[in-house]
């Protein structure tokens, strides 16, 4: 099985003309485009069943509630969980990490404890721990990288001593590196630590099974997986989520409120204060259906082939003039390609590409500690998804040269 060749036609935005060129969208690691079925599902909610959930006794409120809870069940199934109440809806992966740090970390971490993160984390999995550490005084440790951009697992066991939680990305948003989460989980559990995983770049691109990952907590975001912005997920093992105090307080998250206190709601509502982003949840449900219909294994195979093509094309054309960060083996990485071309600054490179309708990202990709490790302030990043094809890669490869002519020193 392969992906349908006309997949771009399902994404209305991908037929747009930008600066006189049909858009070449290579920034899906930042945010993916949305298929028509996701846009339609959200419109349909607003047009036909818009009502607040979980309280109205009338028909459309019941339908809205049912659609929202159905989306939760689909998301659970999509990541291999049998328990929809283990799926907590948040605003994005960043909020999911803040929830973990504030709720689990706030009640489990104190002076003398340690949290282990890695040198390839996104700021979303760094700063929440730093904020909490400033209050609680625990240590933040960093698992380093090997020269080819993999986690240096030789140092893992030694760094685990005294660690209460390991918080690690399943796939780097800069290097593309796929990390061996199940192995890390086994070793972390053996050392008595919990494991939280940043699945933001992983869940949209590879078949995901929370049992295989063996993690305790998993964060990801809707807008990178063909879904809308404003909706993220925190999945957690029931006993872990049960042990955690509420994060935000307000409506929905309570069973009872009295003058002298409150009783929190059951999972998952305990962590879902206030009116949820109903349309976005329904949109995410539609996105998960769309991905399921394609088959995540097919998505992965498509991206391996395309990444292989991109790496070979870039290296063949530019050789020594080009540095591509991260693993060279497409099987060890996703379709995120961070590059440095001659001495052209990423901002200037992306500006030149923009004139040809090519969208890539320039900057530190919210991973400043990693940039420092790489010895750069910024990189240019092209990232691919299920709708990209070889002609998109060709457009990227062809355009680098003109940027070089203009800016090489």
């Amino acid at each position, binding site marked *: 099985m392969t992906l349908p060749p006309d997949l771009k036609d399902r994404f209305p935005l991908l037929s747009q003309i930008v600066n006189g060129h049909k858009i070449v969208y290579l920034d899906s690691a930042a945010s993916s485009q949305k298929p028509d079925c996701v846009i339609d599902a959200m419109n349909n909610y607003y047009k036909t069943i818009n009502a607040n959930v979980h309280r109205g006794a009338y028909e459309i409120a019941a339908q809205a509630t049912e659609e929202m809870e159905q989306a939760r069940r689909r998301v659970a199934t999509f990541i291999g969980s049998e328990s929809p109440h283990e799926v907590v809806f948040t605003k994005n992966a960043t909020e999911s990490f803040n929830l973990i740090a504030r709720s689990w970390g706030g009640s489990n971490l104190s002076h003398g404890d340690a949290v282990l993160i890695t040198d390839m984390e996104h700021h979303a999995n760094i700063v929440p721990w730093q904020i909490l550490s400033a209050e609680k005084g625990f240590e933040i440790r960093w698992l380093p990288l090997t020269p080819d951009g993999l986690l240096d697992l030789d140092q893992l066991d030694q760094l685990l001593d005294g660690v209460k939680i390991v918080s690690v990305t399943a796939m780097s948003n800069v290097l593309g590196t796929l990390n061996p989460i199940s192995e890390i989980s086994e070793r972390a559990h053996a050392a008595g630590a919990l494991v939280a995983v940043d699945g933001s770049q992983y869940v949209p691109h590879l078949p995901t099974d929370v049992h295989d990952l063996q993690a305790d907590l998993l964060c990801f975001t809707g807008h990178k997986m063909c879904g809308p912005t404003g909706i993220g997920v925190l999945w957690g093992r029931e006993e872990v989520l049960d042990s955690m105090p509420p994060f935000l307080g307000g409506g929905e998250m309570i069973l009872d409120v009295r003058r002298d206190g409150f009783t929190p709601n059951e999972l998952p509502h305990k962590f879902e204060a206030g009116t949820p982003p109903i349309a976005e949840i329904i949109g995410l449900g539609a996105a998960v259906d769309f991905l399921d219909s394609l088959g995540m294994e097919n998505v992965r195979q498509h991206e391996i082939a395309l990444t292989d093509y991109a790496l070979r094309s870039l290296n063949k054309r530019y050789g020594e003039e080009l540095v591509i960060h991260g693993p060279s083996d497409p099987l060890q990485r996703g379709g995120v390609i961070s590059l440095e071309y001659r001495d052209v600054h990423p*901002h200037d490179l992306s500006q030149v590409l923009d004139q040809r309708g090519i969208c890539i990202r320039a*900057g530190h990709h919210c991973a*400043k500690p990693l940039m420092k490790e790489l010895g750069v*302030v910024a990189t240019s990043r092209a990232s691919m998804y299920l709708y990209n094809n070889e002609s998109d890669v060709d457009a990227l490869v062809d355009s680098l040269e003109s940027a070089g002519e*203009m*800016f090489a020193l």
Partner: protein
Amino acid sequence: MSGLEELYKEIILDHYRNPRHKGELECPPAHKTEGFNPLCGDEVSLTFLVEEGSIKQLRIAGQGCSISQASASMMAAAIQDKSIDEVRNLTREFKAMMSIHEETMTNSDQESVSAAALTLGDLEALKGVVKFPVRIKCATLSWNTLLTGLDDLDA
């Protein structure tokens, strides 16, 4: 490529390829101020020497794109020997040029821009940046950094 040529004027590329006033001055007697562009991670470090209320020397260090580097280089050339008040005025004029978009321009804005253009000189070449809003922060990085440094003097 017409849009690009408007942004990357030859004089900008010249300052980018051959930046003026690069380096660092010894502190003290010089003052040091640093700035970051949080969008892209670019860094600029300015050291400058103030004598009798005027900026006698300014040196630029750091990393950045062509726009931020050219803007810093042109700024250094423009403020040499200017009084701090004049530098503040020039900064205001430069920032006004950066943030006014053509489609929202009123008559009085147009007048102030052309008045500014008279004193901005070479810096006017950076006017094309306003059509690329993302890059305005690149162009203003060194200016905002200098302002912070001047404010620190007063503090």
